[in-house]
């Protein structure tokens, strides 16, 4: 029996040590996901907490088919979506038009020097609805059809949001790269 199976078995038996062990092993990775989906640290913390409670409550539904980490990640993402839906935290469609169109992206953009924490910071600066669609499509790999159901928007809006998110991200990545190069040259 693999170690993760033993830990899961222990969690199901109500073993506190295994529950804590499961948390400590995966909390950091899942907290990064929570930060990716939330605009502020407090929300991310709430998502992580609620997500883990769901993970423990639904552990008996995990059939040991596929990645356990992937299974936990899906629960965390769904928790983030539920949270945003319940708070009506999504931008209205007409809000999108208020966001200024970004400058055209320069050709042959060099992304070198960007670290994961820079990327996380950039993605968290996106408007909520763009961030949700970009995360679900580009990072998680859902289709526009699936996203439309998950976020309660049309497929067209999903595509449009993704497109706008990409443009904003390209511009911000360019800015970050430029700043980093400037700092490096100085």
């Amino acid at each position: 029996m693999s170690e993760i199976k033993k830990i899961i078995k222990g969690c199901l038996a109500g073993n506190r040590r295994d529950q804590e062990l499961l948390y400590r092993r995966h909390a950091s990775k899942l907290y990064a996901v929570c930060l990716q989906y939330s605009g502020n640290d407090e929300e991310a913390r709430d998502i992580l907490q609620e997500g883990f409670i769901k993970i423990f409550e639904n552990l008996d539904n995990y059939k040991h088919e596929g990645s356990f980490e992937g299974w936990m990640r899906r629960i965390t993402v769904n928790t983030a979506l539920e949270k945003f839906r319940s708070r009506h935290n999504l931008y209205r469609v007409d809000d999108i038009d208020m966001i200024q169109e970004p400058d055209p992206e320069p050709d042959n953009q060099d992304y070198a020097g960007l670290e994961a924490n820079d990327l996380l910071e950039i993605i968290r600066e996106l408007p909520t609805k763009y961030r949700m669609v970009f995360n679900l499509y580009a990072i998680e790999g859902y289709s526009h059809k699936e996203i439309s159901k998950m976020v309660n928007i049309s497929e067209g809006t999903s595509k449009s949001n993704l497109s706008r998110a990409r443009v904003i991200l390209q511009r911000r990545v360019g800015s970050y790269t430029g700043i980093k190069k400037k700092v490096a040259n100085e």
Partner: protein
Amino acid sequence: MNEKGANIDLLFRNGLKDYEVLPPPGVWDGIQPSVKAKSRPVILLRVAAVVTVLVTLSLLTYRWSRELSDTNAGTEVAFNIPASDPLVFNPIASHKFSPSEKSDPVKTYSDILSEKAEPVSIQPEIRSSSSSEQILYVDGASKFSIANRESVRGPQLTSLNTSGSTQPKVKYADLQYFQENSVTKPKNRWSIAAMASPTYYSSFNSGSNELSKELSSSEQSIISYSGGLAFAYKISKRFSIQSGLYYSSLGQRVDGINSYSGFKPYDITKGDHNFEVLTTNGTVYTNNPDVYLSANGSDRILTAYTNDVFDPNKASLQPVNNSLSQNFSYLELPVVLKYKIVDKTIGINLIGGLSYNLLVSNSVSTTVDGNRYSIGTTRGLNPLTLSSSLGMGMEYNLSGKLSLNLEPTFRYYLNPFSPATGSYVHPYSFGIFSGVSYKF
């Protein structure tokens, strides 16, 4: 645009893949109660089952002992003796024989004594008793006892009215022997004892959980102590039930945790603690903002101030110690059954029972130059634990009422100190209790 879009997607997908951010301390505290609620009924059910089994066994043992004494009484034969002269009696003077006994019409007291190995088989005959008579009982194993006849009723008793020429004399010493072995109510049923013991605490580690093995390998027992008052009530000649109130202090040393002082100027977190340390008996939370903790080569410490973020040597913190002391204090309410195996000047008892242990305080500290340096407390401990105990008590009677006691006792905790340890860690303790008891 699509190609550029795909590039930016890849940049974020690959860049954020496997990215980890340490969550703020305290998130686990919010998860713990929800998870705990699910496992509590199982623990309660186990405790209830153990209590039920032990209580049932105690009752059955008590009942069995009572039945044994009743059975012995059922084989007794009674002789009438004149009350005016209790030192001399005539066992066969007024014996009325049944037809089956005609071949052996006279059975003297000395005859009966010679038949020690065989039960005396005589047809029952219940006679109206006289208040001035006493009865001597003889059972199959030649045990004798004297009682007032008024207290004897029932067909199991046979009265032998004896008179005539064969009148063996019974000396006073013999009679005293009979009286000592007579069925009388035990005197001094109550006793009070003051007991104290040094205690060695440790735990069994079962299962193949790597973390619990790793944690317990660096934990050492601290010699602790236990003491209090006990009250006992003698429910029969052999059995007594005991309870009381004890105070006990247990603890362990956790090695491999380096502590430093002087961290306060660098503490910028708003939480109530900076460090969490995993142990087999719950998680230690620091409450001293001046302390910095690190564990080399182990992930048992959870903190925002990891070694890659903060270096205690560069900050010139003062090293304090490389181990922590985890201490717990309990008030114990034992319910113990004692069975007297040997009842002489030095008596020996078999002791077994349960104890409810109420957590009254816990602390974590370390020492620097012989002084105690407070670190924090252990959270997630069970406020009430249940332990079973088994021991052998020796009792030296100084006088009829006062005695010295020595009780080596092994105690096994039915539920762990911390629910987090689950089924992997099984605490136990061993103590040699000594003290004085007074019977009244």
